[in-house]
């Protein structure tokens, strides 16, 4: 894999991961406040307890992915 292709794969992976983490961050937030709605919507996966635990730890990957997503383009252009 050449350098350009590698950067493209990394950027795409970061972007998709950021999207997934953002959705999970939002869903777990709603899962805390509206467990009766989000629980069935996620087939019981995001019940209140797991929503709380997920929401309280997802900030770290979210910030890291967002930073990487924003900086990668500039770094690659250097």
């Amino acid at each position: 894999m050449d350098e350009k292709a590698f950067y493209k794969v990394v950027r795409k992976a970061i972007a998709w991961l950021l999207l997934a983490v953002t959705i999970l961050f939002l869903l777990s937030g709603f899962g805390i406040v509206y467990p009766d709605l989000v629980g069935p919507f996620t087939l019981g996966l995001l019940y209140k307890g797991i929503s709380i635990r997920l929401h309280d730890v997802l900030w770290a990957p979210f910030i890291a992915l967002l930073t990487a997503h924003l900086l990668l383009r500039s770094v690659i252009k250097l």
Partner: protein
Amino acid sequence: MRPGRMVAVLILLLMVLLAFAYAISALLNPGAGAPGTDEVREYQGQKLSSIDDFRENSIKGPQHIDITRYNLTINGLVDHTKTYSYADVLSHPNYRKVVTLNCVEGWSVTILWEGVRVNDLLNESGVKPGARTIIFYAADGYSTSFSLDYIRDNNIMLAYRMNNITMPPERGYPFQLVAENKWGYKWIKWVTRIELTDQDYRGYWEQRGYSNSGDLNASFLG
């Protein structure tokens, strides 16, 4: 290939990896004691939340109280300053009640609380005429206050058990106040001292703009 650029990309990837490692580690080691199988989830036909359904939002994180050195003090405008050990408090008549805690963050939990009435402790200390405010202090420096009438009239409880199991440290062990019909920030945990006064008092969040009464039927913003 530019080595500088590659290093920068690798640093960003490493940062992402570390963030995921932190998240996975925190998920697998939440620090909370597992409730175990003894936790009841229904009481007299009423469905209960789990004690894991709380969001930890205390000001300094969970406090781990050494129960052998723990004391609950009642002072201020009382006839006799009293100091109780954990066992002393538990020797009082205990009461059970299902009460819902509503947090200002939007979530709520319905729990079977078991504990002693603050009234019983106050009666032993003897409340001096003129006392109208009761202040609760916690091990982490948190505090909050109520009108004495509220505590008296509603038989407010200091809980030491939740859903039939001993309150875990992250929930407020040894005692959490069950401040019925008040916003969650009035439900002080890790209570160490109760003071009676004839002055108004604003606690931790109340000093930062939250309502001093903390009534559920009104906005929590001062």
